[in-house]
């Protein structure tokens, strides 16, 4: 905490937090209506409605990757299965890539789904029509463009954009090095990847101009756009680093903003869906909420290193609830009190 910041004890939300133990690495969390979902490293998915918890033995191994929409969560396991699980507990097996891990999964705003297993990348339209392509290397990051049926995938040597329904090969956005996660800016103008070497790389889609976003002491593996799409919040430093993307050339030549500066590494970030506020999780288990306008911080969860690094954060659609989980299996949620 920076010296002039208010003490978290004085502006704490901790009394509004419900905590429980899940006993396995939390890969992802989200809300499906009133139900909180947690996808875990022992293959279980826990659906929790108030005090009531329902456990689903979803995968034979670990849930490696996770995404969700308003109705269901999607889990990819090291058993090669990709599942869709609703709040009711209904399970649908979408894919089974035998002998492989599901390494990435992504949803489009229109309900298309994509996943990768090794170098194989598959995209499935809502109608069920499926297309496959082989990437230059294993793919760990997938993202659909905000508009149109277009998929971005990160790989060694850059990222590629693919129209699954076109016969043309994917368009390469090259940059030397191994690229891990990928995301589009909500306005569709920029593509950003996280990299093996503690940096982000960005391209302006219109002219493929490069953006280097460096200075991280660790890999930046959690990326979240603010509700207005103007900032990209990122993990990997001892603060949440926010890169400005509002201008024509994005963050080129600009310094990022920092918020939630602490002596602990940020491991997860999740921007509030409606307000300029970011939830920040740290490797010591602390969770803060940070208001971007003035950097004001609210404590959600106190540091508790034996419960592990924050590995998952997720808001509900209204932005009234925040779920969290840690690498050692602690979890819970915050119910935001009515604003005063």
């Amino acid at each position: 905490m920076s010296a002039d910041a208010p003490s978290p004890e004085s502006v704490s939300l901790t009394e509004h937090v419900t905590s429980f133990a899940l006993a396995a690495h939390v890969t992802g969390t989200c809300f499906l209506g009133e139900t909180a979902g947690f996808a875990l490293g022992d293959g279980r998915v826990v659906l929790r409605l108030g005090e009531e918890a329902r456990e689903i033995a979803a995968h034979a191994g670990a849930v490696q990757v996770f995404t969700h929409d308003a109705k269901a969560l999607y889990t990819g396991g090291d058993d090669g299965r990709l599942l869709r699980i609703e709040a009711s507990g209904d399970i649908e097996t979408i894919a089974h890539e035998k002998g492989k891990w599901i390494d990435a999964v992504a949803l489009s705003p229109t309900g298309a789904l994509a996943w990768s297993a090794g170098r194989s990348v598959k995209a499935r339209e809502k109608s069920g029509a499926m297309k496959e392509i082989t990437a230059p290397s294993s793919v760990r990051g997938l993202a659909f463009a905000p508009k149109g049926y277009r998929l971005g995938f990160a790989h060694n040597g850059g990222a590629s954009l693919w129209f699954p329904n076109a016969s043309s090969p994917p368009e390469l956005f090259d940059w030397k090095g191994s690229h891990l996660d990928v995301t589009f800016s909500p306005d569709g103008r920029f593509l950003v990847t996280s990299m093996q070497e503690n940096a982000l790389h960005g391209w302006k889609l219109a002219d493929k101009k490069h953006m280097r976003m460096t200075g991280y002491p660790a890999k930046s593996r959690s990326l979240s756009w603010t509700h207005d799409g103007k900032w990209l919040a990122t993990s990997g430093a001892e603060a949440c680093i926010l890169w400005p993307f509002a201008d024509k050339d994005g963050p080129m030549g600009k310094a990022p903003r920092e918020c939630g500066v602490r002596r602990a590494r940020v491991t997860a970030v999740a921007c509030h869906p409606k307000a300029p506020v970011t939830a920040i999780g740290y490797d010591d288990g602390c969770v803060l909420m940070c208001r971007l306008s003035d950097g004001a911080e609210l404590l959600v969860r106190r540091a508790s290193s034996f419960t592990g690094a924050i590995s998952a954060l997720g808001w509900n659609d209204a932005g009234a609830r925040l779920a969290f989980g840690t690498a050692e299996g602690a979890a819970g949620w915050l119910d935001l009190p009515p604003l005063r």
Partner: protein
Amino acid sequence: MSDKIPVTVLTGYLGAGKTTLLNRILTEEHGRKFAVIVNEFGEIGIDNELVVGADEEIFEMNNGCICCTVRGDLIRIVEGLMKRKGKFDAIIVETTGLADPAPVAQTFFVDADVGAAAKLDAVVTVADARWLLDRLKDAPEAKNQIAFADVILLNKTDLVTKEQLEEVEARIRGLNPYAKLHRTQKCAVPLDAVLGREAFDLERILEIEPAFLEDGGHHHEHDEAHGHGHDHAHEHDHGHHHDQEGHDHAHDAKDAASASAKAHSHGGLKHYHDEEMQSVSARIEGEVDPEKFMPWINELTQTRGVDILRSKGILAFKDEPKRFVFQGVHMILDGDLQRPWQEGEKRESKIVFIGRHLDEAAIRAGFLACAA
């Protein structure tokens, strides 16, 4: 520190017996649970709950250097396995027969997340006693694997004569005198010969004497491998074979050393010098000046790192009560001050390199110039 998952890397040319060793490790009663990362998924039955197929994706690091590479797939898999923390105690990585062990080893030093979760325990190379001499001639990968190893299993010793065995062992020693060498049949070794070696643990780099000197010429025969009696190689000559009695070593040409290796003998114990791959060691009977040594070792590994496979050193720095210990893989160096020099312990400094076309005279001279 200690809760890092130990990782054993199994290398060896095709058919040497890597999978035999792997299955032996997995089936032995030890109460340990392994996560096994194999390269040819599903081809050979591996009796283990947690088996991951890998595809050996070698990624260059951004410095553009050809030796600075990591295994991208391993980074991904180790990260994924950590989600199952508590479900296994150790990781075994089996590489392809043609693999260079360096990118695997470098992954543990270069990737901070992998390095925080797991630690390299040892590189174990399985060599086929019958075919290794041929492979050393025609397969650079085989030579690499021998030179890189911390532990070598010279396997299938039942398929060669005693003389052939001495020959192949001498060739191995010519490439890598520092590895622990075990003569085996069907890879029968006690598990502690291949697991829990802590070969990359700076705290455990106590001595860097050539293994065969340290052991007084003993072969590591596995008479202690109780329960595998039928696999024992009952041999008790301790390597000093002045006696050329009886055995027919006139099989064929493959018992001859390769053309690039020169043999000479000292009282019957053969020594080979491989013209491509050598080890170089140097000693200073006293302290070194860190102000001279650090720039020298950095410069040497930066300029010659492509050819230096492994390096190790234990150094007495001037005015420093603790031992400085380092190890390296190509250009990547890992060093730290370790335990204090003990009362009566001789404060001396020693370095060892294994690599290709090493300029022995220059390395020696460079090191000696670092004397305090």
